[in-house]
């Protein structure tokens, strides 16, 4: 499975990547608050450290030190497990994303991904579909009507947009002729970046990712004034923090997936910078997510559902069918 790489290198790499993703998450929250501030003509966090750079650490300390309250009626084990499930699936999904071509370090070959799985794309979606349980179990175990209704809303949203998400990448799979993310990236390096022929697929993917990660304008769980938030209404402190972390890590992972599928991963238009290109592209995508948050108001729930089923799904289906016809015709 991991061609020529000893198992302990994979383990070390996994440890490094998990920590890098967590660091990226921490500074995505900083970037988000800074960018939002600038777009709204204010400074954003600027008290903790230079340019507010210590703000994520201050937030972490605050969340951990908060009293971890518990609804009396909550089912303890499930209540505690729910954020853990959300967090685990979010972090595990990054394992199949390739970020470099692989290197020769000393006399070991190190692959540019943690696990080179032949069905990496399906594995990623499978982890995403398990991640939904974090929301549904959390909402149910809180034993509160608001949480339950919120988790129903979130689950319906996630399940609906998962369909469009999976269908939108079908065109890429057909063109790359593989479910292996490394092969898809290599194919793009050898031919053309897939966002050009798969523009419709990329747009559907992008909208579906916003909904999958509950980002504005699809952030119904955050609508605490009109919808009493959502599945995490009864969560506080670092438990709530884990849900929030999972959301951001999902955003980073799915941005990385978008880079892999549509923007040729670590390949750059010039200069072989490898992983730096990958990081730069992910950074640009994440910034676009933040930009959208600053620009678009939240959708109503029925608008959200209508958009998912009546706009994204048909476009994704037609795109997949046309791509299939073209691929058969070209061969």
């Amino acid at each position: 499975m991991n061609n020529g790489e000893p198992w302990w290198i994979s383990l070390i790499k996994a440890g490094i990547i998990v920590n890098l993703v967590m660091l990226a998450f921490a500074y995505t929250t900083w970037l988000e608050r800074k960018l939002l501030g600038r777009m709204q003509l204010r400074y954003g966090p600027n008290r903790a450290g230079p340019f507010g750079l210590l703000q994520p650490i201050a937030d972490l300390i605050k969340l951990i030190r908060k009293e971890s309250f518990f609804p009396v009626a909550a089912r303890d084990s499930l209540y505690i497990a729910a954020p853990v499930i959300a967090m685990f699936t979010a972090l595990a999904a990054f394992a199949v994303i390739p970020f470099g071509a692989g290197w020769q370090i000393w006399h070991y070959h190190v692959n540019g991904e943690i696990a080179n799985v032949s069905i990496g794309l399906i594995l990623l979606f499978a982890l995403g579909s398990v991640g939904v349980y974090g929301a549904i179990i959390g909402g149910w175990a809180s034993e509160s009507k608001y949480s339950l209704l919120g988790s129903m809303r979130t689950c319906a949203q996630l399940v609906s947009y998962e369909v469009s998400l999976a269908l939108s990448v079908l065109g890429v799979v057909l063109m790359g002729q593989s479910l292996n993310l490394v092969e898809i990236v290599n194919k793009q390096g050898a031919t053309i970046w897939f966002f050009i022929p798969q523009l419709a697929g990329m747009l559907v993917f992008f909208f579906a990712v916003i909904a999958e990660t509950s980002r504005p304008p699809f952030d119904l769980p955050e609508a605490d004034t009109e919808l009493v938030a959502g599945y995490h209404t009864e969560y506080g402190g670092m438990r709530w923090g884990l849900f929030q972390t999972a959301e951001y890590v999902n955003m980073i992972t799915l941005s990385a997936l978008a880079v892999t599928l549509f923007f040729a991963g670590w390949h750059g238009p010039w200069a072989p910078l490898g992983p730096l290109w990958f990081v730069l592209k992910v950074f640009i995508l994440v910034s676009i997510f933040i930009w959208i948050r600053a620009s678009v108001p939240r959708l109503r729930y029925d608008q959200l559902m209508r958009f998912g089923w009546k706009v994204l799904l048909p476009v994704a289906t037609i795109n997949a069918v046309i791509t299939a016809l073209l691929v058969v015709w070209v061969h």
Partner: protein
Amino acid sequence: MLVASAGNVVVWMVWIVAAFACLGSGVAVVSFSSPFYSALALIGNLGSLAVLYLLLNAEFVAAAQVLVYAGAVMVMFLFVIAYIGPRSESPWMGGPGWQAVGAVLAAGALLVEIVVVISLKASGQLAHSEHVDATFGTPAYIGRLFLTDHLLAFEITSIVLLVAAVGGVILGAHSRRSPEEVPSL
């Protein structure tokens, strides 16, 4: 990765853990009093089955199992159970007599099967392992089988799913409108 290629301790350990998780979660499904916990145990059951598939070189089937069954289908189960509310039922109320007879017969058949397999294995008749080439279990391999050897079953399944989808729409429309504007089924 086949279990038959013995000596691989990790494979054996994973197999034992997955097999016991499979049995344990199966028993848990029928013995929890809360249907929500039963459904969670069923997810665990499907997940441990996926691990067993993985050990049999069927990576695609394992991932599809998690994606479709442990993911999408079971979310619907939990959805409905959470909506219906906290209604606990005792797991076993005592069914009709024929159920007990059927259960005993099924258990007996299973026991016979286990005894036969173990005796065959002991007498060395199961020693040869099937040759598995590199393409076995890949999406391309499974796709080719679907469109050649199993085309009829594949198409019939798609029709069954289509009928289920249309039926769901009709039932949904039926319950949403007032009785007089709905044509009788």
